[in-house]
């Protein structure tokens, strides 16, 4: 590259770099700094170094079944995010495959349908689920009308999971579709010619070659779900907290900004670990 080209590239990249600096790096750094300060009673921080927030996060509580209540909420958030990802994958993979098999016009139409929910605010769509799942809601009215017993589903973890899967599914389907759509079907014929059965074709050819879509979709589903706030509040009746709820509590009513920041820092570190592991395996794969 000539010097001029490098300079030109610099100009092109600078808005993006500035954006990342201003709206990602500086705020993230601020969170890290805040997590090591003292709490001010009325919200905000006192500018004196303190590790109180981290001590509080890791101090075992004898009344709590696992280490302490914060750890329970961390574990639950990751567990629910994992469940959501798996369910989305199971539902999304066949759907993406089906869409990819259609003619061009039908394909565009179906992808368009997958994206339509984004036209409405997520909060509104979550409230819509509340109306469906309520004790007197659409589902129970229907069941009752058919002479079946009502099922109390609203304000339970099941309702939360339904809401999470519903909200995340497009983020799984779209990358899967992008991967599957590019798949070269002559490879399937080649494999069958060489005597592979359906299962082998899928596991040895189809799945590995669409793996990038699986991974991209899983990352896009998993990360936002871990920090969910709206769904557990509205569909879970606020009974069981996820990470988003506890963060809102610490910055809101608890007015403990350092502690909220410490939770966010640990959360970021855990996610970063996850992504590093992903890159590590990716590299392994490429060297093989």
């Amino acid at each position: 590259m000539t010097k001029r080209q490098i300079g030109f590239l610099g100009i092109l990249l600078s808005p993006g770099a500035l954006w990342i600096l201003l709206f990602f790096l500086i705020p993230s750094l601020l969170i890290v700094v805040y997590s090591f300060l003292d709490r001010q009673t009325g919200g905000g921080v006192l500018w004196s170094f303190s590790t109180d927030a981290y001590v509080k996060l890791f101090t075992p509580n004898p009344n709590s079944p696992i280490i302490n209540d914060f750890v329970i909420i961390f574990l639950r958030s990751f567990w629910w995010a994992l469940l959501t990802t798996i369910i989305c994958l199971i539902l999304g993979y066949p759907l993406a495959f089906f869409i990819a098999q259609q003619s061009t016009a039908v394909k565009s139409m179906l992808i368009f349908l997958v994206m339509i929910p984004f036209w409405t605010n997520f909060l509104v769509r979550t409230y819509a689920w509340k109306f469906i799942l309520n004790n007197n809601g659409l589902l129970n009215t229907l069941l009752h009308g058919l002479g079946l017993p009502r099922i109390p589903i609203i304000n339970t973890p099941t309702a939360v999971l339904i809401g999470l899967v519903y909200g995340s599914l497009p983020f799984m389907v779209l990358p899967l579709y992008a991967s599957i759509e590019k798949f070269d079907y002559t490879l399937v014929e080649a494999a069958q010619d060489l005597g592979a059965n359906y299962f082998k074709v899928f596991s040895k050819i189809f799945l590995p070659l669409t793996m990038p879509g699986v991974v991209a979709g899983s990352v896009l589903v998993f990360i936002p779900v871990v920090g969910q706030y709206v769904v557990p509040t509205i569909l879970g009746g606020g009974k069981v907290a996820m990470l988003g709820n506890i963060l809102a509590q610490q910055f809101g009513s608890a007015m403990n900004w350092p502690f909220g920041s410490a939770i966010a820092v640990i959360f970021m570190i855990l996610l970063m670990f996850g992504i590093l592991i992903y890159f590590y395996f990716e590299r392994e794969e490429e060297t093989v």
Partner: protein
Amino acid sequence: MKNQKFNALFSVMALAAIALLLAACGGAATPAPAPAEKEEAAAPAPAEKEEAAAPAEKEEAAPAEEAAMSDRCGDKSKLSSELNIFNWADYMDPDIMARFEEECGVKVTEDIYSSNEEMMAKIQAGNAGYDMIVPSDYAVQILADGGFLAEIDKANIPNISNLNPDNMGMYFDPENKYSLPFQWGTTGLAYNETAFPDGPPDSLAYIFDPEKVCEHSGFVSMLDDERESIGAAMLYLGYDFNDTDPDHQAEARDVLLKQKDCLAGYNSDNFNQTLASEEVVLAHAWSGGAALARDENENIKYLIPKEGGSIWQDNMAIPADAPHKYTAEVFMNYVLDPEMGAVLTNYTYYFTPNTASEPLLDEYYHNLLKEGGMMVDDEIYKRLHWIKRDDKTIIFSDTWTAVKAQ
């Protein structure tokens, strides 16, 4: 292989970016959930309410109108052309702002917040540009202690004389140097009469005794508020509403965990709607929200349980860095005018601290609150507790986390 992966990721990122952008655009227009009582106060008033109000207002206000009109704007030469207030959602009748603009020539702009903490974060950051805010009791104390409030020049607010002495000189501002009462209310139990044929649920046992609460399993809600819900558990256990003793907090947590299986959930955003639509039959509730529910469903009633309830007061205050302090004081005086005070409370369904406004409150308001059981008399007043905050009360947050974790 690598290329394909890159393409897949890239196309997804592009789609996701568009999706997020769309979601964000929608999000900006949707206000964050506010406490229900405040959020829903704008529910259209039935026509009869308007009719009942009109004659009463005219009769009482007419003779004094001429004199009142001239003072209501203070010294007009000192007024700014605009005034920015920062308030709870639907907590200020737009009519009051429109009339202030018409009479005094000051354009009032209102921004909305949904919690004291949200408001305090903006005020504490400085240069928020607001001339008047409406902090609740404990928030006044926090802001005043931090030097974020301006001292009010009472000479500019002659209508202070209209205020009920009971609402003045509170613990959070003993001399009312920084704040003047705006509206107040209570926290108690709202219930659907038809679900309690054997008599009203007049005790906290109806929400905390597992046997009693499970009779209405899935149809009982608690406020999603660490101070109110843990405070209620404290009262049920016979402790102080603001008790920070770790053992008592642990007991309160157990009480809350035992009730939890039979709860519909924790809801302070729209319990008035769930009560009105009979999705819950018993709710730990704010008085204004209960009144709104009753406005839609006349089976809804409200009471302060025998173990006690809580009381709170929202107040008008001026940030230390307010750009238009004098105009804010004139506006406060305007709100404290007897007529405007009545307009305000007819709109919010709370209680007015303005004694001079009381006779001007319309009949619909009186009937709704009296028949609904929201009115506070001396006997009830004795059972009401103020939420206090100090360095120790952070334990309420940890207890609340423990309740939500399991």
